[in-house]
C-alpha cells in the first residue's frame, strides 16, 4: 500500500547523483552477492519455479570449508569460514524484502517521479532491471516467483489489510451492485473473451489452431479477473469518491470466487478425456461451493477469533497474534478445500473486526493496524518486483495475433460488460452509476499478479502452448498496469470524477446518520413495506442481542456513537500528548471507558500507557489542581470531574475541527500549557450565585448555550499571576443542571478550551458543593509522577478535593 510520505524533496545535483548511485547499488546488491555466495555452496534458490531448469552448474560444487576431504590428512582449524548454505534460504528472502523496501524508500525520496508514475509501475521496472541483470550475469533464468510463494505468503497480507479496513457500511449498501459486477461481469468477460479468442484461433493463418476450446476457456478464466492488488495500488493514489472506489475494489475482491471456481473446473475438464453433462452441473455447483464455502469458513474463523479475544485481557501482548493467525488459518483452510481463500479472508476480517476491536487494548489495536499495513505494503512491493523479475525468462513464445487479439478482446469485453451491466443495474439503484463512473470502472479493470501466478500453475503436459499463454498474460498485465495505471490519474482529473473528501469523522455526523437510519426504518415500518433497511435493522438487532453478548467482553456492546466519540477523544489525547502539550486530558479516555461509579481495576498495561503519555509531556501542573487518583475516586466528585475532563476534551476537539476547517484565527490552537506558577489562581469574582466561576459575562440560565466569550472581559485578565496564554473554560454546575461554557483567551484569540481550575465559590456557599465543583482533575497515577518539577503544593491528602487558599 502506498503510504503517503512526507519526505523532503530532493533537489540539487549532488543529491541526484547520490540517488543514481543508490539505485545502481540497489540493483547490484542482490545480484552480486547471491551468485558469489551461491558459488560457495551449491543450491538452487527457493524461489525457482520447479519447472525451470535448475542451475545444474552448481550441483556438483560443494565447497565447505569445514568439510573433510580425505581421511589421510587433518584439516587445520580455519580461522575464518563461510557457510552460506546454512543461512541461504532466510538470507535470500530477507535480501529480497530489503530490496523491496529500499526501492520503496527510494521512490518516496524521488517525489517528482511518483506523481506521474504509479508506484506499481516503478516497482515492475526495478524488477525488470534486477531480472535482467541476473539473467545477463549468470545466463540462467532468474528466480521466478513460484505460485506457492505468491498465493501462500504474498497475497494474504494484502487481502487481510483490505478486508480489515473495508468500510463496512458502504460495502454492504452497494453489495448488490458489487456482486452483480463481480459475478455476472466476470462470467460475461470470460465467455466473451474465450469465445472470441477461440474464433480467432480457428483462423488458420495465425497458427493457433491446435488450441482447444477448453484450453481457451481456462486461459479466459484466468485473464478476465480484475486483480485486487493492482486495483488497490493504483486507486489508492487517485482518491476517487468512495462509492466508485468501493465498486471497483469490491468487484476485484469478490470476483475471486468466480475465477477460482471456473479456473479449477476448466482445468480439470481439460484433463478429462470425456465430458458428460454431470460435469457441467458439477462445475456450476462448484462455483456456489467455492464462494459460499469460502465465506462460511471466513465467518467461522472470524467468530472464533472474536471469541478468543474475549478472554485475553490478561495476556494483552499476544492479542494481535490472534487476529493474524486466525485470518491466515481461514485463508489456508479455504485453500485446502479449493474454496476461495480471498473471500474467506475478507469474511473473516470483516466479521472479526467489530468484536475484536472492542475486546483488545488500544495498543494491540495500534499494533494490528501497523503490522497489517507494513506487511501488506511489503507484500505488494515484492509482488510487483517479482512480476518484473519473472518476466525476464526464456519461456516466452510470441505470437502477434494471439497477443494482440487477447489485449483487444480484454478491453472490448470489459467495456461492453460494464456498459450493459450498468444499464441493467441502474434500474434497481437509486444512486445511479453515471457515465463517468462507468468509464472509470471499465478503465480500472487492471490485471495483475493473480492471473500471472495462475498461468504459471498450468500443467505443461496439458497445455502445450503454455508459453504462449504466459507471454500473452504478461503483455496484458504490463499494458494494464503501465498504460492504464499511468493514465488513469490524468483521466480522473480530466473527466472531473468526483473525488473523496477526506474528512475527519465527527460525532455530530454519526449522530445524524444514526438518527436518519432510525427515521428511515421507522417510516418503512409504518408503510408496512419491506426494504433492505429492514434487513439492515434486523441484522443490527441480531448482532446486538446475540453476537455482541457472546463475542464481546464486558457488559454491553458499545453504541457506534459512543465508540466514535471515545475513539476521537483518545486520538486527541494521544495527539496532544505526543505534541508535548498538556496531556491531562489524555487519561480522560480511560476515564470515559469506565463509568465513574464503578471503580474498576485498571490493568497495569493501561496504567503504564498512561504513565508514558504523562511522562512525555512536560506539562506544568497547576499546583492546586487536585491530583487525581484513579484508584480511589470519591464518589461525589466523580461525575463532575469526568465532565470537566470531557469539556476539556471538547476544547481540543474544537481545536481540531477548527484546524481542519481552517477557520483559525491567529494564535495557536493547540492546547495551552498551564500556568506554571503555582499560585496562579483565579480569584473568584462576584459571579452568579450558584456558579463556581463565570468567565465574565452573564450566563443565560434559561437556554443551554455554548457561549463563546471573549476573555478580555474575563476575570483572568485581572489575575496578576496569570500567564497570558491561558484559556478558560468553566463548567458551571448547578445543583441539578449543568451547562458548559467556553471561554476565550484574553487576547481575543480563539484558543483551545482548556479547563481551568474551578474554584469553589466563596466560602459562604456550601463547602461540599464547592468542593464538588472543583474539577481540575489531574490525572496522575497513584504514585508520583516522575517529572515533579513543579512545586509541590499538595498538602491536601485527598487528591481530589482542593481548596484554593
Amino acid at each position, binding site marked *: 500500500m502506498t503510504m503517503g510520505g512526507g519526505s523532503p524533496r530532493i533537489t540539487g545535483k549532488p543529491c541526484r547523483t547520490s540517488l543514481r548511485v543508490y539505485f545502481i547499488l540497489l540493483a547490484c546488491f542482490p545480484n552480486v552477492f547471491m551468485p558469489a555466495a551461491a558459488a560457495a555452496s551449491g543450491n538452487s534458490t527457493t524461489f525457482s519455479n520447479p519447472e525451470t531448469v535448475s542451475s545444474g552448474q552448481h550441483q556438483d560444487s560443494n565447497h565447505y570449508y569445514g568439510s573433510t576431504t580425505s581421511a589421510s590428512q587433518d584439516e587445520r582449524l580455519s580461522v575464518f569460514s563461510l557457510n552460506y548454505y546454512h543461512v541461504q534460504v532466510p538470507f535470500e528472502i530477507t535480501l529480497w524484502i530489503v530490496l523491496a523496501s529500499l526501492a520503496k524508500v527510494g521512490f518516496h525520496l524521488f517525489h517528482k517521479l511518483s506523481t506521474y508514475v504509479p508506484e506499481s509501475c516503478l516497482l515492475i521496472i526495478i524488477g525488470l532491471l534486477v531480472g535482467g541483470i541476473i539473467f545477463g550475469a549468470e545466463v540462467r533464468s532468474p528466480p521466478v516467483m513460484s505460485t506457492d510463494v505468491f498465493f501462500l505468503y504474498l497475497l494474504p497480507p494484502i487481502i487481510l489489510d483490505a478486508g480489515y479496513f473495508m468500510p463496512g457500511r458502504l460495502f454492504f449498501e452497494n453489495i448488490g451492485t458489487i456482486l452483480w459486477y463481480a459475478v455476472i461481469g466476470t462470467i460475461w468477460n470470460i465467455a466473451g473473451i474465450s469465445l472470441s479468442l477461440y474464433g480467432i484461433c480457428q483462423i488458420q493463418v495465425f497458427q493457433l489452431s491446435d488450441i482447444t476450446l477448453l484450453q481457451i476457456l481456462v486461459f479466459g478464466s484466468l485473464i478476465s479477473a480484475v486483480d485486487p492488488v493492482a486495483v488497490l495500488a493504483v486507486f489508492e493514489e487517485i482518491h476517487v469518491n468512495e462509492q466508485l472506489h468501493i465498486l471497483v475494489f469490491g468487484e476485484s475482491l469478490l470476483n475471486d470466487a468466480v475465477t477460482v471456481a471456473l479456473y479449477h473446473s476448466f482445468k480439470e475438464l481439460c484433463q478429462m478425456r470425456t465430458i458428460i453433462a454431470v460435469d457441467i452441473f458439477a462445475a456450476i455447483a462448484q462455483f456456489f461451493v467455492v464462494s459460499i464455502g469460502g465465506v462460511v469458513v471466513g465467518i467461522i474463523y472470524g467468530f472464533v477469533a472474536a471469541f478468543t479475544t474475549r478472554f485475553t485481557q490478561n495476556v494483552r501482548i499476544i492479542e494481535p497474534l490472534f487476529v493474524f493467525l486466525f485470518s491466515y488459518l481461514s485463508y489456508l483452510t479455504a485453500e485446502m478445500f479449493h474454496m476461495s481463500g480471498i473471500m474467506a479472508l475478507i469474511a473473516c476480517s470483516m466479521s472479526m473486526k467489530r468484536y475484536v476491536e472492542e475486546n483488545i487494548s488500544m495498543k494491540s489495536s495500534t499494533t494490528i493496524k501497523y503490522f497489517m499495513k507494513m506487511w501488506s505494503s511489503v507484500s505488494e512491493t515484492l509482488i510487483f518486483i517479482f512480476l518484473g523479475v519473472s518476466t525476464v525468462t526464456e519461456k516466452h513464445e510470441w505470437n502477434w495475433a494471439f497477443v494482440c487479439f487477447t489485449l483487444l478482446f480484454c478491453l472490448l469485453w470489459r467495456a461492453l460488460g460494464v456498459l450493459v451491466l450498468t444499464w441493467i443495474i441502474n434500474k434497481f439503484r437509486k444512486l445511479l452509476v453515471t457515465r463517468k463512473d462507468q468509464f472509470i470502472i471499465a478503465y480500472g479493470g487492471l490485471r495483475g499478479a493473480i492471473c500471472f501466478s495462475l498461468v504459471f500453475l498450468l500443467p505443461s503436459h496439458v497445455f502445450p502452448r503454455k508459453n504462449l499463454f504466459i507471454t500473452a498474460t504478461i503483455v496484458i498485465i504490463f499494458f494494464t498496469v503501465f498504460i492504464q495505471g499511468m493514465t488513469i490519474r490524468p483521466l480522473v482529473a480530466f473527466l472531473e470524477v468526483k473525488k473523496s473528501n477526506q474528512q475527519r469523522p465527527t460525532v455530530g455526523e454519526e449522530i445524524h446518520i444514526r438518527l436518519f437510519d432510525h427515521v428511515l426504518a421507522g417510516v418503512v415500518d409504518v408503510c*408496512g413495506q419491506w426494504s433492505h433497511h429492514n434487513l439492515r435493522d434486523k441484522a443490527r438487532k441480531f448482532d446486538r442481542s446475540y453476537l455482541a453478548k457472546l463475542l464481546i467482553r464486558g457488559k454491553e456492546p458499545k453504541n457506534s456513537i459512543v465508540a466514535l466519540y471515545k475513539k476521537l477523544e483518545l486520538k486527541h489525547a494521544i495527539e496532544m500528548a505526543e505534541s508535548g502539550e498538556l496531556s491531562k486530558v489524555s487519561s480522560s479516555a480511560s476515564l470515559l471507558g469506565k463509568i465513574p461509579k464503578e471503580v474498576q481495576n485498571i490493568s497495569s498495561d493501561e496504567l503504564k500507557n498512561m504513565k508514558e503519555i504523562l511522562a512525555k509531556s512536560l506539562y506544568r501542573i497547576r499546583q492546586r489542581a487536585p491530583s487525581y487518583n484513579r484508584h480511589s475516586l470519591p464518589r461525589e466528585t466523580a461525575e463532575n470531574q469526568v465532565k470537566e475532563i470531557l469539556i476539556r476534551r471538547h476544547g481540543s476537539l474544537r481545536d481540531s475541527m477548527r484546524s481542519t476547517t481552517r477557520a483559525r484565527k491567529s494564535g495557536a490552537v493547540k492546547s495551552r500549557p498551564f500556568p506554571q506558577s503555582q499560585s496562579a489562581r483565579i480569584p473568584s469574582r462576584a459571579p452568579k450565585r450558584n456558579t463556581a466561576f463565570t468567565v465574565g459575562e452573564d450566563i443565560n440560565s434559561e437556554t443551554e448555550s455554548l*457561549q463563546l466569550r471573549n476573555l478580555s472581559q474575563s476575570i483572568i485578565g485581572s489575575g496578576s499571576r496569570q500567564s497570558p496564554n491561558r484559556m478558560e473554560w468553566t463548567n458551571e454546575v448547578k445543583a441539578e443542571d449543568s451547562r458548559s461554557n467556553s471561554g476565550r483567551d484574553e487576547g481575543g484569540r480563539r484558543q483551545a478550551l482548556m479547563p481551568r481550575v474551578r474554584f469553589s465559590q466563596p466560602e459562604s456557599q456550601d463547602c461540599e458543593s464547592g468542593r464538588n465543583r472543583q474539577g481540575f482533575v489531574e490525572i496522575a497515577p497513584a504514585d508520583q509522577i516522575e517529572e515533579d518539577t513543579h512545586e509541590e503544593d499538595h498538602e491536601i491528602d485527598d487528591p481530589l478535593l482542593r481548596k484554593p487558599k
Partner: protein
Amino acid sequence: MGASPSLSAREIRNLADSTSFSSEQIEILHRRFLHLTDGKTTMSRNSFDNVPDLDTNPIKSRIVNAFFDGRNLGLRSKERVDEITFENFLTTLSFFQHVEDTHPKEDLEFCKVEKLKFLFRMYDTNGDGKITLEELREIVDELLSKKTTTDLTSSSIADAAMLEAANICMGQTETDEQYDGITFTDFLQIMRDLKIESKMHVRFLQMDTTAMCTQ
C-alpha cells in the same frame, strides 16, 4: 381489516396530483392506512402501536410526532394535531419519495431542502427554529441505549456534537457571539457533505406485498 371505505377514483386522482404518488401506490398506502386505523378515517397516535417493529425503534415517539407535526403537514403553526387524515398521512410520506434526477435543478434543490427540513423538525421539538443543546442531548439520550451509557456520556457527546457544529458554522464569525443552537442554515451546512437527502427515500411499491410479508 374491517370494512374498508375505499377511495373513489376521483379522490385518488386528486391525491395523485397533489402528492405525486402514483395511483397504485396510493391505493396500497390507503389499505395500509386503514389497517393501522382499524377502519377509521383518521389516525391518532395510538394507531402507530399497530406497527410492531416500531416499538423497538429508539426514536419511535419522534417519528410518530413527525406525522402529527403541523409544520410537516403544511400548516402555518407548529402545533401538533391529534388526528390525521389519509391525505395528511400521504403528505408526510411524500417527504420520502424518490426524486428523479431528470427533474429540473430548482425542483431537485427544493425537494432536497424540504427533506432536510423534515429532518430538522425531528430534532427541533419545540419548534423554535433552532436545535439547542438540550434538544441535542435528548436525541443522543434516545439514540444510545440506556444500559451502556450514563447521562454523563450522552450529554458530553451532545456537547461535543454541538461544539463541532459551532465550529463549522461559527468559524468565520466573531468571537463574541453566543451560539444558541443550530439553525436550519447551519443544519444545511452540516448536512451538505453527508448527502443524506439522497438516501432519504422509501421504495413505495407498485404492487401490494403486504399479503406476502408478515407484519
